[in-house]
Structure formats: C-alpha cells, structure tokens
C-alpha cells in the first residue's frame, strides 16, 4: 500500500496557506507539523482527526435526528386529527379515537408573552450594555457585568415560584391600572382570566423579561465594546457629548448585536417552560391578544400533559406542538446568527 501525499490525511498539512477567512482566523494555527516523523504519528493523527470529526458530526446528527423523530412521531397524530392543526383553538386529546387539536391558541399565547417580554427587556438590556461599556467606572464594569450574568444562573423554576407568589400580587394593582386606563387598546383589554392572583401573560411576560435580560445584555455588550476606538475619538474631537458619542458611534456600530441579542432572547422566551407553566392560569375561552389573558404556551402545554404521555396518538399531538416550537426557535436562532453575520456567543 502506498502512502498518499499529506493532503489525504484528515486535517493535515494545508501548509502555510492563506489564513482562514474573517475574524475567526485569530489564534488559529496555520503551521502544521509534518506528522509521522518517526512513524506512528501519522496513524495517530489520522485516528485522532477522525474521532474529532466524528464528534463534530454527532452534533449535526443530533439536530437531524431531532427533526426526524419529532416528525415521525407527530405524523400519525396529525393524520388522525379531526380539527385543523393550524387554525383550531381546541386541544382535546382525551379520546384517542377522536383527536381534536390545533395550535392557534398556543401560538397566540406564546408569541404574545414572548414579544411582551422582549418589549420590556430589550430597552433595559441596551441601557445596561451602554452603561457597562461606556459609563461605569472601568474597575466596576466587570463585577457589574457579573451581577447581570448571575440572573442567568437562577433556575427557571425558582423564577416561576417568585413570579407567582411574590411578584404577581405586587403587579396586580399595576395590571388593574393599565386595564382601567388603557383598556381601549386590545393589548390591555379585558382578558379571559381574572386579574386577581396574577396568573396572566402580563406577569409571565415580566418574569420572562427578567430571564432573557442576561443573554440580550451579554451579546449587546460584547458588540458595544468592539466599537472602533477611532470612531469614538473622532466624535469626541468634534465636541460630541457622551450621549452623542454613544448615539453616533456605539449604537450604529452595535446595531447587529442588538438585533442578534434580541433574537436570542426571543428564542429563549419562546421555549421557556416551567416558569410560564407555574404562572399562567388556564383559561376557559380563547384569548383576544390581551396581556391579561391566561392560557398555555407551546412549552407549558406540553409540560402540563407530560404525566399522561402513555398512549401514542395523544402523545403525538403534543409532539406535533413541540415540532412547531422546534421550527420556531430554529428560525429565530438562525436569524440571530444571520443578523450577527456569523457567530453569536453569549450563551
């Protein structure tokens, strides 16, 4: 057997070629050894490289399998569904012979609660990012940042407990006030659950906003801190005030980061399960896009029925809902990546 030239060895030489394109090339090795100096090394390289490749492939495989198995399990139930999957607000799976389920209501509650959370969290996150990168004393910026990141460390079930037992009663007067004075707007109109107790999208949205704050902040902060020094100094030289510097250099430069961070936050909010499950109260009628509605999101609906996943067809109905959630988060996360023009970190 002849040993082929180096190029056949996985990941080997690609000698001092052009460095990898884009910013990812920093710190990546371009000098690669001529392996197999004493024999054995070449085989070792080949095996090790293959194992590394296989590990990478596993991740692609995991996503592919995820889509595949969710589809396989959802299709029989979708075929047995007697209601329209997209437009029906019913979700009745008690009788396996007469499945009637649709995602209209779940979609509405999921989108409304997530967008509401986003509307609260994004301005605050941008404010924090601007504060930490441009205003806070340099020595304090790091510990301050850690403080915000610590929010991400609190388990979501704890946020749920706090939300329903501690925050909800405090928010009740606020909700009543908004309902009384802005009730003419559909968003603050009368909901399908009682305001007392606070088991509304309003409360859930505020808690979700707290939960997604760290990720939006960290992505935005990262981009803000990359603002070219020259641009900032140029603005300062023209006599700009601090606010004008931020508005004219940091914000335009960091726009992609703000969008990417918001998208990542949206993805988190869409899929948040247990905090929403604990907080939202189930409603008898369908909602009308009011933040004082109750109901279920995709995630909380699935989790609420998890104990009864025994027979295949009803379970498939929930898996179908899960599939929609998977697609939704897939799209949102892909958009986040697109907005950032490549890698988005800050998980």
């Amino acid at each position, binding site marked *: 057997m002849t040993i082929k030239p180096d190029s056949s060895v996985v990941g080997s030489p690609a000698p001092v070629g052009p460095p990898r394109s884009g910013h990812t090339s920093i710190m990546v090795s371009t000098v690669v050894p001529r392996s197999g100096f004493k024999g054995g090394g070449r085989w070792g390289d080949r095996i090790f490289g293959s194992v590394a490749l296989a590990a990478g492939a596993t991740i692609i495989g995991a996503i592919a399998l995820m889509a595949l198995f969710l589809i396989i399990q959802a299709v029989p139930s979708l075929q047995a569904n007697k209601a329209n999957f997209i437009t029906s607000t019913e979700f009745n799976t008690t009788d396996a012979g007469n499945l009637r389920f649709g995602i209209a209501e779940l979609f509405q509650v999921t989108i409304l609660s997530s967008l509401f959370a986003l509307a609260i969290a994004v301005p605050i996150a941008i404010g924090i990012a601007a504060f930490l990168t441009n205003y806070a004393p340099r020595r304090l910026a790091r510990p301050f940042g850690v403080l915000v990141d610590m929010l991400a460390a609190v388990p979501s079930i704890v946020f749920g407990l706090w939300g329903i037992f501690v925050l909800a009663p405090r928010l009740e007067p606020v909700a009543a006030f908004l309902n009384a004075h802005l009730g003419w707007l559909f968003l603050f109109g009368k909901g399908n659950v009682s305001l007392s107790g606070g088991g509304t999208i309003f409360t859930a949205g505020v808690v979700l906003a707290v939960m997604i704050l760290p990720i939006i902040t960290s992505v935005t902060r990262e981009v803000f801190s990359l603002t070219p020094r020259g641009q900032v100094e140029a603005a300062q030289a023209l006599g700009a005030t601090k606010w004008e510097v931020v508005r004219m250099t940091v914000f335009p430069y960091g726009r992609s980061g703000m969008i990417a961070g918001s998208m990542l936050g949206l993805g988190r909010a869409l899929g948040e399960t247990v905090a929403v499950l*604990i907080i939202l109260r189930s409603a008898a009628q369908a909602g009308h896009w009011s933040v004082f509605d109750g109901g279920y999101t995709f995630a909380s609906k699935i989790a609420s029925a998890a104990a009864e996943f025994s027979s295949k067809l009803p379970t498939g109905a929930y898996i179908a809902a899960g599939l929609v959630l998977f697609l939704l988060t897939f799209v949102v996360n892909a958009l986040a990546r697109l907005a950032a023009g490549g890698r988005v970190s800050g998980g």
Partner: protein
Amino acid sequence: MLEVPAKGPTFHPLSPIRKIKNKLATVLFASAFAVATVPLVWVLFTVVERGVKAVVGQGWWTRSLAGVLPDQFAGGVYHAIYGTVLQAGIAALLSVPLGIMAAIYLVEYGRGTFAKVTTFMVDILAGVPSIVAALFIFALWISTLGFPQSAFAVSLALVLLMLPVVVRNTEEMLKLVPDELREASYALGIPKWKTILRVVVPTALPGIISGLLLALARVMGETAPVLVLVGYARSINYDAFNGNMASLPLLIYTELTNPEAAGRARVWGAALTLIVIVGALYVAAAFLNRYLTRHRT
C-alpha cells in the same frame, strides 16, 4: 469687509438642550442597570427568607420524604439532591468527551463547509428549548426504542442541553492557547494529535473545567426534562436506569400541588437548596478562572 476675519469665540458652551439630553441619557443608562439588579436581589432574598427554616431543619440534608405525610414538617430532600447530582453527573460524563472532541475538531482541524455547518448546528442546538430536547428523547428513547422512563433518559436530554455550552466554551479556551506553544511542540517533532492532547488541552484545562462547572450548574435547574422523562419518587432510588427518581426541580414542582403549609415550606427549602448547589458550582468556576488568569500573566 473680507479683510477683517470673522472670528467668534473659539469654544461655544454646550447648549442647554444638549446638556440635558446628555444628563438624561446618563441617568437612564445607570437606572437600567439598577433596575436589573432588583429582581436578582429580590429573588435571592425571597428564597433565603422563605427557605432557610426548612433547610436548617433536622434531617433536611440526610433524609428523604419516605413516609412523611403532606402536612408534616419532617423529612428531607437528600433523595432529590442525589437525583439532581446523578442526572447532571451522567450528562456531564457523556457530553464532556463529546463536546471537547467537537471543539478540538472545530479549532484544530475544522476547515471548509463541514466545519461551518457544525458551528451553525452548535448555535442551533444552543437555542433548542429544553422541552423540545425532552420530547425528542421521549420520542427516541422511550417511544421508539422502548426503554422505560428513567433518570438516564433525563441525562440524555441534559446532554443535548450541555453539549453546545461545553463546545463553545472549550472552543474559546483552545483559541486562547498561543500558537507558539503548538509550533514549539511541532518543532520537536511531536505529531499533531499528541500536541493537542499533551500541550494544547492541558494549557486550556482550567478554563475548560470552569466552563464545564457553569454548564453543569445550568442543567441542574432544568425542570422540563424531568417532567417528561421520569416520575417522582418520595424515597431514595439509586438506580439510574429503572424506576422513578426525585430531583430538586421535580420535588418543587410536585410539592406545589400540596396545599399544606409544610408543602410550601418544602418548596422554598428545595429552591434554596438548588440555589446553594448552583451557587457553589459558580463559585468554584470563578476560583478556577482566577487561577487561570493569575497563571497566564
């Protein structure tokens, strides 16, 4: 007229409106930060205040809830702590080698389309909601392959949630290893694989471990997988592959349906216990990080 230079004062004072805008922006940005610290302090205060009584109670760390009546202030949560640690531990055992190898692939080998697709999929996996990961494991492991609900199934779902965090963090740490180290090793005739295993990874190890601890802390609080993939048990179960097993989030969720005061006390006690464990992991990670920065400079 043109012979006389039209010369005003060199510096105009800031117009009041610009001054006000500037002050307003400063106040707004600072208060955005202040607002963010409110929920953190509030949540931690609430959990400590309501949970501390249960946690310091007799047997909290050493007993299970076996034979404890719903309205009895007795028993403990060691069975749930065991479950939480076991499930996260198995998930770490599975995801650490896989995640580190995938990161090595991306940093040391990955070129071209396949590496780009892998990076993209890591990002997508990072965004998969925990309930979807749980449903997937349910569809694959329980529904299709026919295994029973078990702690191991939970661990499999946690692997999916941990993997992207481990990959990303390891990637960052490997990229921080200076190229000179690699080159020095190559110059000594060491093959690439040995260079990675003996030079690159050991150099990055404290950072990798620190990221691992954070990933571990994050999956310990995951509730969605345990709701779907394992049943609750009031007593200890050591077997990861069979039977119901409690974990702290599952215990909290189950005790929420207990209307007695004792149930509420257990809910907050378990929440505090969970936060203490997660906090300990964070502190450990911070120490490692400090070690890392001290030894690099």
